[in-house]
């Protein structure tokens, strides 16, 4: 059960992050829009953007799977082990989002891979 939850969390997190990154780069939010008075408008705007709604759906799956994981595992296990998504997302950021992933960033991602292998 523990590792099934980890797999669900990682898979849904990867999909959610790719969708968010793709959509948020199409319509950049300005710092001024983060003021408390403008948050409701920002939320309304986000709710009308399909990829973000889909991303939130995947995040909800990840959220409930994380709740389940916390009920059967320690916090200090649950949080680091889900870092496995970092490596997968870095590869997809290069292939799908066309980001310039330099050697230093690959090194950072590999450190993310090492974490669940060591602590899991």
């Amino acid at each position, binding site marked *: 059960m523990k590792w099934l939850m980890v797999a669900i969390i990682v898979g849904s997190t990867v999909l959610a992050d790719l969708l968010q990154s793709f959509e948020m780069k*199409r319509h950049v939010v*300005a710092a001024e*829009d983060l003021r408390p008075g403008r948050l409701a408008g920002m939320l309304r*705007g986000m709710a009308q953007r399909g990829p973000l709604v889909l991303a939130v759906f995947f995040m909800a799956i990840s959220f409930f799977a994380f709740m389940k994981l916390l009920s059967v595992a*320690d*916090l*200090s296990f649950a949080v680091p082990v889900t870092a496995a998504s970092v490596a997968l997302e870095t590869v997809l950021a290069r292939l799908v989002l066309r980001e310039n992933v*330099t050697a*230093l960033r690959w090194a950072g991602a590999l450190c*993310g891979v090492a974490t669940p292998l060591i602590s899991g």
Partner: protein
Amino acid sequence: MAAGRAIAEPAPLTSSGPKRVDLKTKLLTAFVVCTNVLGNFAMSWGMKHQAVDLGLSPFAYIRLIFTPWVLLGTSLLILWLLSRMTLLGWADLSYVLPMTSIGYVLSAVLGKVFFGEQVTWQRWLGTVFIVAGIIFVGLTSANTTRQEPAR
């Protein structure tokens, strides 16, 4: 208003070069980390203090969400979601992921201090790797694909 805004013109590179990460991005990154760590902590606290067998029933999850600590955790994680979405518009995904992973370290510390969890040397070694990853990625530009946020 974010929705419907046309994509801004690419910002010219400053004299300090493309590797400069502005204060706004750093502050938002710190906010994202704090809301994530505190949200996870509150959630974990709530889960550990509820004698509820979750099973697979969605109603058990919904009941649990409205308990005080889980509600606090959920609220913080909603703030985390919104601020992280904004950050993903300002910086690359491959930059945001390792930079915000300092949250894993802080969660391990909170787990040990407040829950008395057994944090083995392997887990501490894992946190060292995360910090190393943050240092590597911190040396790169935050944004390699698109424009700065509209001002």
